[in-house]
Each structure stands twice: as structure tokens, then as C-alpha cells.
């Protein structure tokens, strides 16, 4: 175990996988600078700065993946994926199926999103749901340094295109990360970040931490919240979510992305189609608004679900929950 932040964990995953498999390569605008250690280890053939041309960069990754390489493309900020949509959605996601299984597309895209840098909606757009909706693609969005490492390593080894989204507010968050080069986190497995019995809080990426914070606050009210970190949005670990909802009967889904046709809608639909009998209260979605992210700090922050709102929503679901009476330790004056 080492203490690494998310950025370090990502780089460690890349370093290990490039070391393990010479077909793995990294490309993107400025990667040879932003990931200088990789350049030093693997040289300019395998760590390639690209022109500013996301469409062809991603298309190149798709073409290279189909014919023997295992590219990792750094596309910087998620909104720039709009230039890469044909390559990702129409080529990487569809050409395997349309070819009757002749091709595989083992590629990984990296990109960042999320509030925290006051950069506005053209850099901050949580659009992961668009790719969850698109067939043939896998999508992960971890919340801890260890999961970043383990999921990126698995993604690189996967024979399908995997999109990895990084909430930029997590970049400098640190945590314990296993040192083993065979530390892999499977795609399609959610993590139960905290066990509980009264309500299930489902989330992913930075809002997992907000859910954990809420769970702690809910304890004060005698409410035991289970927190599920989806980690992998597609494939989705339906069973872990359903098991928890069947246990608690109450579900709150929290995401920073806007609500309409987002992951929270998918999870709510999952619960009401497959765990209906267990539900004891209306499901609650706490999401970002149907609005672009503004740059101004106060507006940007206003779009992020808060622990306060989560606690309030859960308390309304459980109006009879009694606050935990703590022994008052009277301080000597």
C-alpha cells in the first residue's frame, strides 16, 4: 500500500500496464508533458503528443485498437469528446457488431469533468450518461485513488472501448493504493462504501464522498445509510444496487450530472422495475440542474448536491427516526 492521489494513481496504472504490455500506448494533446514520467520510461513512440484534432485522435485510437495496439487516449476535458463522437459512438461502439464480431476495440479514453475549477460548461460537463446510452461502450467513473488505479488497469486489459471520466475535484484526493501490479478492480462491480439498513444512497465519483458525509450526519439521527459507489456505470452492477434497495426499501440517488436521462434515472428505473415490492418510499433523485455549468464559483457550487440536501431528503423519508441521544459531557467551567 502507498498513499497516492488520483493523478498519481492514474499514472501508476498507465506505467504498470505499459510496462506489462508493449502494445499499450498513450496519446493526446500534451501527454508527453503532462505524463512526462511515461515519456521517460517508454519513449516518444508510445507516448505521443498529438495535434489539436480530437476527431482524428480518437479515430486513430479506434483504428489502432482494431489492428493490434491498445491505445489510451487522453482527451483532457469531457466536453471535447463532442469532437470524438463519431469515432467513439459510430466506430468503436458499433463496428464490432456490424462486422459480425470481426473486430475488437481495446481502447481507453481519459477525460475530466466536474465543478471546482470555475471553468464553465465548455470544460465542465458531466456527460457520461451519453456514453452509457450508446451501445458497445463501457463507462467508468471512480471515486477513490485505488479504484482509479484498479479500474484503469482493467479497462486497458478489456477488449472493448472503455471511457474513464475523472472528476477534477478528485485529482488531488489521496488514499491508500495497493502496490501490486496485479491489483485489478473488475468492471461492472459496485462498491458498498458503507453498510447500512435504513436507506440506500447510490452515487459515483465525487458525490460518493458527499454521500459518505451525509451517512455520517444521518447517524446522528439514528438513521443507518448504506452508500453504494457504482464505480462502473456500464456494465452496471444491478445486483448490488437491487440487493441494497431490497434490504433498505429506500433509495436516494445522487449525481452531479444533470438529471434528465442520466444515471440517476437509470437507477430509479432499475429499482421500480425490479425491486418495486421492496420500496417503502418514493425514490429521490438529487442531481445537477438541467443547465450548463456557470464559471462563477457561487453558481458552479450551487449545482453540486450537498450533504445538507441529502440528509434532508432522507429525513423526510424517515420522519419518525429518532435523533440519537448522546451523553452530554458537561465541561467543567
Amino acid at each position, binding site marked *: 500500500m502507498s498513499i497516492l492521489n488520483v493523478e498519481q494513481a492514474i499514472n501508476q496504472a498507465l506505467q504498470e500496464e505499459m510496462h506489462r504490455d508493449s502494445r499499450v500506448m498513450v496519446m493526446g494533446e500534451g501527454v508527453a508533458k503532462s505524463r512526462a514520467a511515461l515519456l521517460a520510461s517508454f519513449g516518444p513512440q508510445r507516448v505521443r503528443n498529438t495535434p489539436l484534432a480530437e476527431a482524428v485522435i480518437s*479515430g*486513430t485510437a479506434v483504428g489502432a485498437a482494431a*489492428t493490434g495496439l491498445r491505445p489510451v487516449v487522453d482527451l483532457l476535458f469531457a466536453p471535447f469528446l463532442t469532437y470524438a463522437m463519431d469515432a467513439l459512438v459510430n466506430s468503436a461502439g458499433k463496428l464490432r457488431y456490424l462486422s459480425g464480431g470481426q473486430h475488437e476495440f481495446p481502447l481507453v479514453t481519459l477525460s475530466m469533468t466536474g465543478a471546482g475549477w470555475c471553468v464553465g460548461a465548455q470544460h465542465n460537463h458531466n456527460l457520461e450518461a451519453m456514453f452509457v446510452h450508446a451501445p458497445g461502450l463501457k463507462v467508468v467513473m471512480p471515486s477513490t485513488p485505488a479504484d482509479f488505479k484498479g479500474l484503469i488497469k482493467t479497462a486497458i486489459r478489456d477488449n472493448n472501448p472503455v471511457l474513464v471520466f475523472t472528476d477534477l475535484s478528485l485529482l488531488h484526493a489521496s488514499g491508500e493504493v495497493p502496490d501490486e501490479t496485479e491489483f485489478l478492480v473488475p468492471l461492472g462491480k459496485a462498491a458498498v462504501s458503507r453498510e447500512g439498513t435504513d436507506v440506500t444512497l447510490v452515487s459515483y465519483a465525487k458525490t460518493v464522498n458527499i454521500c459518505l458525509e451525509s451517512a455520517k450526519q444521518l447517524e446522528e439521527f439514528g438513521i443507518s445509510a448504506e452508500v453504494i459507489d457504482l464505480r462502473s456505470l456500464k456494465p452496471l452492477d444491478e445486483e448490488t444496487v437491487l440487493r441494497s434497495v431490497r434490504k433498505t426499501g429506500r433509495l436516494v440517488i445522487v449525481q452531479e450530472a444533470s438529471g434528465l436521462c442520466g444515471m440517476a434515472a437509470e437507477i430509479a428505473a432499475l429499482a421500480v422495475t425490479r425491486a418495486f415490492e421492496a420500496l417503502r418510499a418514493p425514490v429521490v433523485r438529487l442531481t445537477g440542474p438541467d443547465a450548463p455549468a456557470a464559471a462563477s464559483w457561487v453558481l458552479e457550487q450551487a449545482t453540486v448536491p450537498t450533504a445538507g440536501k441529502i440528509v434532508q431528503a432522507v429525513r423526510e423519508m424517515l420522519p419518525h427516526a429518532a435523533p440519537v441521544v448522546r451523553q452530554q459531557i458537561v465541561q467543567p467551567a
Partner: protein
Amino acid sequence: MLIRAYEERLALMQQNNGVPGTCTSVGQEACAVGVLGALDSRDRIITNHRSAAHLLARGADPGRLMAEVLGRVDGYCGGHSGSLHVSARELGVVLTSTIVGGGLSLAPGVALAQKMGQGEEGGVVVVFFGDGAACEGILHESLNLAVQWQLPLLFVCENNQWQAYVHRLETMADDAIYRWACGHGLDTQRIDGNDSDLVLEAARQAVGAIRADGRPRFLELLTYRQRGHLEPDDLAYVDQVERQRWLKRDPIALMQARLKAEGLLQDKELRTIEEQIHRQTDTAQAFAEASPWPDPQKLLQHVYAG
């Protein structure tokens, strides 16, 4: 070689006439035959919606191709593709996108894999695309990347004057494609795409040069789409004067005339070949029509790789 090529072309024409609902290559056969004649089994090809000539010239089985067009299980893609995105890995036809410009985005990656050792030594990658695709921004990105990264990639633009139902002069200046390519500083040739000898010669030179120095080349082949964009098509929107001019320069007729003039082809021989192709096409059709439909139970097979 020439005879074989000719044979394929004629097979192609016959066949295309028999299969509605496709984008035919009729009138453009010399492009396919010439370029593919310059390649060998090391080389890899990327094509588009108008792929029949490329596939047949590469040695595709007309029966399996037709089965694919009909959506049958014996098609090259098990019926998943239909006519628009046929790829046949076994023939080195590695990727096909029907998104106009899609192939241009994929090609540098295939060439990069080649350059980085993921192909047979000395292999070259060829991407076919139309004059319409040349208007897409991806052409610019693809050319720049291929030049900067020194990729072993041959760009082949079949300038057939049409972009679906729009004449290309409505979308670009007369000599635009050639000039655009030149602007990227790679070796570019613009030649008569209806003369299979010329195309073969130019492609051989370009492919040889790529094998030698690993850098990309560009061919613009001037040709003409004799039939509609997508069968059936009444061609009501087509300038008949221009069309007649090009029909007089039909690539197959041109080649036959030349072969006859050179004494390499007799009328009798030609009739034999025609009959042979007719039978081949009949066989293909019978094969395709007899091929079963895919099993809907297997609908989800091949969405994700294991």
C-alpha cells in the same frame, strides 16, 4: 493480371445490376482494380459505403458479399452489416464505415499499428473515400496526422463528381481536392480514374514509395458515378451532357478496346469470359438467396468482446 481484373470488374457490374438497394461502383471499377492490383496480402484496406468494387477486386467471394447485402448469415459480417459497412478481415479489409469520412478517421490508427509493428513487415494501409468525404474536416486532420507522424498510408480519393444527389461543383472548387492535399505537403497525384492501367501504375509508384520511406501519399482519381447514389434511382437530377461524356469513357469499355487493339483479347474469349461471369453471378445469387437469415435469438452476440 489484366484479364483477372477485367473479369472482376465485369462480375461486379453484372452483380450490381442484380442487387437493388446498394451504392454501386459502376463506372468506377478501374479505380478499385488499379489500386488493389498494386497491393499484396500484407496490405490493409479501409473502405466505405461504396465498397463492392474494392471488395471484389480484393478477391471477395461474390456469393458471400451478396449474402451480406441481403442480410444473410453467410455474409462476410453474418448479415449484421448489410451493404453499407462490409469488412472482411481475412482479406485485409480491416475497417469500413458508412459515415462519410469515418474511414479517414480510422486509417491513421491502422497505419500507426502497422508502423508500430502490428502487421506484416512492409505493409501499407490504403483508405478509399469520395469527393464528398473530402469536404469533411476529418480529411484535414487525417492528412496532417499522417504527414506529421509519417504513417504508411495511401489516401485514395475517388472523385466521382457526385455526393449523393449534389454535384461536387456545388460544394467545392473545381480543383479543390488536389489543392487541399497539396497543402499538406505530401506527394499527390491526380489522374484519370477510368484508365485502369494508369491507376495501377500510379498506385504501384505510390505504394512502392510508401514501402520505401514510410510516409503517406495521396491519389485523386477522376471518375464518374454512372448509376444513382443508391439503387434504385431515376437520375432525374443528373446533367445528361456530362453523364454522356463520361459514359463514352466507361472504364471497362476502354480496357476492352485497348486489350483488343493490343491483340490480347479476342471477341470469342470475351464471350467466354462474359458467360463465365454470368454463371459466377448466378451462383453467387443462388448462394446468397439460399443462405439462412440470422437467428434473432443471437441478437446480442458480438455487441461486446469477451
